């Protein structure tokens, strides 16, 4: 189990690394496009590439943000309840979160398959959309795993509900 948890953490870090690389690429590409535009040589398809990179930045950072407890949540009511009730609410909300991201994983693959079959591509560079959907599906699946791992740790009493930083 520990090896599995370590593996999940490594993968979330790796995905976040890709997200970071895409953010830097977005910055460089846009700056280059603005500068080259001054010389009447804008980079063709910048608009499309930035959209693809943006999807990767937010999508691939989802699992990492979940591990770090980085999503906004309202804790003011729950933190006043007894530890037992808090645990029940934690279990319910984690399960609901897992259902949501499992459905997103599934639907992104289906949507990606549809886009691949119909051959839908971007207007200028004719880049296919489906790989982004598959990437999003992978990220949603990783969020599912992170939520399940947190739940498992609470079950095995290795962690309090909503403890920050998954490690």
């Amino acid at each position, binding site marked *: 189990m520990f090896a599995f948890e370590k593996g999940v953490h490594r993968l979330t870090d790796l995905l976040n690394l890709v997200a970071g690389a895409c953010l830097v690429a977005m910055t460089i590409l846009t700056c280059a496009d603005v500068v080259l535009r001054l010389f009447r040589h804008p980079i063709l398809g910048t608009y499309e590439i930035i959209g693809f990179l943006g999807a990767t930045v937010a999508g691939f950072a989802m699992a990492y943000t979940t591990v770090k407890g980085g999503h906004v*949540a*309202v804790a003011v009511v729950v933190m006043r309840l007894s530890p037992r009730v808090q645990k029940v609410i934690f279990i319910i909300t984690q399960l609901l979160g897992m259902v949501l991201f499992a459905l997103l994983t599934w639907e992104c693959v289906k949507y990606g398959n549809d886009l691949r079959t119909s051959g839908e591509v971007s207007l200028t560079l004719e880049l296919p959309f489906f790989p982004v959907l598959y990437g999003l599906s992978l990220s949603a699946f990783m969020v599912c795993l992170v939520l399940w791992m947190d739940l498992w740790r609470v079950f095995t009493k290795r962690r309090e509900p909503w403890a920050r930083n998954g490690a």
Partner: protein
Amino acid sequence: MNPTTAGLIGLGILLIFLFSRMPVGFVMALLGLVGFSYVVSWESGLRIMAKDFFGIFGSYSLTVVPLFIFMGQIAFHAGISRRLFDTAYTLFGSLPGGLGIATIGACAGFAAICGSTNASVATMTTVALPEMKRHKYGLSLSTGTIAAGGSLGVLIPPSVIFIVYGIATGQSIGKLFAAGILPGLLLSICFALTVFIWVRLKPGSAPAGEKHTLKEKLRALSGIGETLVLFFLVMGGLFVGFFTPTEAGAIGAGGAIIIGLVRKKLRWKGFVQSVTESTRISCMVLVIVAGATIFGHFMAITRIPFMAAGWVGELPLPNTAIMGFIVFIYLVGGCFMDSLAMILLTVPILYPVVTALGFDPIWFGVIIVLVTEMGVITPPVGINVYVVSGIAKDIPLEVIFKGALPFLLAILATVSLLMLFPQIALFLPNLMR
């Protein structure tokens, strides 16, 4: 069950789940999915969800969010915030409460290159709090000043909340940015006056600072040069229409990196931290936007927003009274919820009401940003207070909340002035093409 009833039940369940400590973005996405699927079909609901996540994450307009967050992070790691504070201290340090006023000045300056409240507060707690402690400032005054000053981060452009509000309502981000400048300066002055009056009433809370010669003050001005250049480059390009907001964000981030490298302050470690923090904060923002978009689709098919607009429009009350009530909703809601989530959740319902009543959408954007920002320094959720307390762990929460209280009066005064004189917000956007 007809769609409207389903929508009202959905809103009720949403309110319950929002307080369950489940991430706000997840709650809105889940209830949006279930509600939409119930009214239309599961197949359509699932497809809408996947399309919205894909559409929001990959939207060119929204790529401005990570870029401006990146710019702020780089600015912090390149030491720009520290130099801003040093300059403000040299200029205002000898005034009563000079360090507090310098903190407000530095917050306003940093807000001009950073689009997030939390980032501004965290930065200023690290930079200004040790200085105020060293000069024996009262803990309430020093922490309250930082918590309140940080709220300037979302009012003075660039601002993540203005970006998201602009996209949600179809308003120009450039105009919203322009609309935030004068109210932001006005609020900074009101905050500085609050510090000044506080110290006049309780001189023991802030011992007098060092005096600086005119020559020193002039020399210190070089510390804000880089911020001014970056601000005018980014905002200037945006206002004259040379850049799109995304390009402005990228140029800002690129400019901040160049400043950091030229000044030899930006190290590899700081750069990597900037990138990692930026992806995390951007993802947090965009998941809320995606969740709110899915929930917004559910609300749209229930027709609740349009019915609410019609219903409120027919109320036998003057428009200003209705606006006052809307502001009150934001004020109360802002005390319990994150500003961004609160705005995204309410805009699909309240925006049609506001426009039907004839209020200017740009002005309304400024008002709700200001009002929800009151929530960041008021209990129980007061996020800025928690950020200060998270960094300065030895200071009790109640001391910071008490310190932030007088600054609420300053925000209320600014809101009242904006209600009376909408031109404060609208003057600059009206100059734009």
